[in-house]
């Protein structure tokens, strides 16, 4: 067992001749809230896409709790314990809120039910369905979405859609949660609530969180440590105050 929940070694990817991300070395400890920041186009989401198997890294590799996950498919990586949310919310829009979470519970070993059992309506099908719904409701209650559970996902207001996406990601019982700009499009009040919620998720679910964010109040408010990316390379890393006062970082954000 490694000391770190997530460890990346020289992670990098090139699209043709373009080196989008090079030599990213992240070391995230358990129960840490780790920030990945950088100007637009720095390659932050590309790092997320590599960690979730959307892109295969061309150089380097990454480990979850010491297990190398590079080269796995997206669903396999999810089963191994990395769940994510998206910058532009991606819900199952035409499904109800509770069903969205139930899809997240699909691969849990305790809810295993073969196709044949479902088709023939054997007892296990009914038991699994009932238990999945119960578990989903518990999760929705934690996120304050229980009353809306039978609404279609796209009918939810923006803030609740964000919460539902996090609830769905947590339903897959991950060890590491990746949040891609969770505060995008939120007002200061909502951002403050979101910060409370992220801390709550860490404590309640014993979670380790890696997040991409542009909102500096959120970053400085909840992140334990930071890595700054600029043009695909690591500009700085370390604890929040040191990194944010680093002249290189200020220059990358504000220019000379």
């Amino acid at each position, binding site marked *: 067992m490694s000391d770190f929940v997530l460890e990346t070694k020289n992670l990098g990817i090139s699209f043709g001749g373009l080196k989008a991300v090079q030599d990213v070395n992240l070391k995230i400890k358990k129960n840490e809230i780790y920030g990945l920041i950088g100007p637009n186009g720095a390659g932050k989401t590309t790092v997320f896409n590599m960690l979730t198997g959307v892109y295969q890294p061309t150089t380097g590799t990454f480990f979850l709790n010491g297990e190398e996950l590079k080269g796995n498919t997206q669903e396999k990586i999810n089963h191994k314990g990395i*769940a994510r949310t998206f910058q532009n919310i991606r819900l199952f829009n035409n*499904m109800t809120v509770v069903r969205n979470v139930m899809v997240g519970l*699909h691969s849990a070993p305790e809810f295993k039910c073969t196709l044949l059992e479902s*088709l023939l*309506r054997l007892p296990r099908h009914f038991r699994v369905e009932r238990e999945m719904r119960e578990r989903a409701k518990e999760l929705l209650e934690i996120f304050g979405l229980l009353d809306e559970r039978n609404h279609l996902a796209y009918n939810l207001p923006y803030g609740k859609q964000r919460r539902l996406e996090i609830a769905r990601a947590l339903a897959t019982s991950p060890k590491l949660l990746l949040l891609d700009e969770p505060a995008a499009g939120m007002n200061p009040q909502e951002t403050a609530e979101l910060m409370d919620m992220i801390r709550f998720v860490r404590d309640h679910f014993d979670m380790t969180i890696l997040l991409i964010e542009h909102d500096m109040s959120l970053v400085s408010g909840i992140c334990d440590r930071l890595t700054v990316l600029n043009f695909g390379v690591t500009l700085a890393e370390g604890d929040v105050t040191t990194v944010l006062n680093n002249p290189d970082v200020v220059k990358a954000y504000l220019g000379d």
Partner: protein
Amino acid sequence: MTSLLQGLKNIKWKHYINYIAVGIFAILFTLMTFGGSLPQSTLYMLEEITMNILLSVSLCLVVGFLGELSLGHAGFMCVGAYMGGKLAVILSKTALGNGVLSFVFCMLLGAVVAGAAGFLIGLPALRLKGDYLAIVTLAFGEIVKTLFQNSSSESFGGPVGLRTPRFDKQYLFIIGFALVLLALFVIQNLIRSKHGRAITAIRDNEIAAKATGINVTKYKLLGFIISAAFAGIAGVFYSFSHNYVKAEVFDYNYSIEILIMVVLGGMGNISGAIISATLITVLNTELQTILTGDRAVLKDVIYALILIAIVIYNNAPALRSFRERFTPRAFVRRLLAKRKGNAYNADDDARWDVVPTKIDMDEVLSVDLKVVESTMRPDKEDKSDE
């Protein structure tokens, strides 16, 4: 007694409404046949209706729930018709003769071979999206048709077609109803399970489904295989019903007609698919008998006008609010609200519990700018997350 009543109350009738409706009609028509009050033309129409219900319900799985546009459903049917028909020819010369057992074997072979074809079409479906997949399925249907047309006369009859043994006509439609019930059993149970939820999740957002741990490959192939297998069964039924299989019948017009049944029924609505398959079959047959001679051309015109009217009714925003006000459900709610003295709230009528549909008519039947744009850049990948 009370517990029995309680039990009856707890049954989700909504889940069984399709079985009940189909079952009632099956029993009704069976009794009428035994009473000898059904003319041959009605029996023939019943066979056509059950066959088209099979086709539309199975296509509904791919188009309505998996969210992939398939224009080759008649191709799967063609495979089933030829395979089942050929086996029936072979079996009729053996001890099995032309009995029910040989019928079952033919059904199985048709389903398996068509299901294998569905697997083959499912493979490109893993990489192709929307219009491109539609083109591939369209081509598949045409290829299958052409292959059978050019087969030798000893194997599948070639351009002349394949004559298949006669099955006892009188009771064939009852088997048709049984097959519809089987299809409903499999497809509805699939959709109302965790596996069906995974399939609808892929329809709604494939990227999110993958990130949520859904095995997209498995479920896409599963959807295509089951859908194609039932189309194959419908094809075998066709060969038994018509005693004659000719490849020309299974052209893309037929595929599109099946698609129309699904679309008119409301995508992802199985009851709707059943009703619209029935109505379209009846309409087609009736128009064919009424309009003879010079007036035969009017058939297509009337058919098209009715389609346009239904599509507008289903999609025009002005009509939509009208429709929502006057659904049977809204009527019941208004009645209940009046009785309780509560104000009627139109929001209550939103039907959260119905598995809803993703693709609407605009997306299927029109080529909008977005499509043109993506055609110009075929390698465009969705990187909106970047």
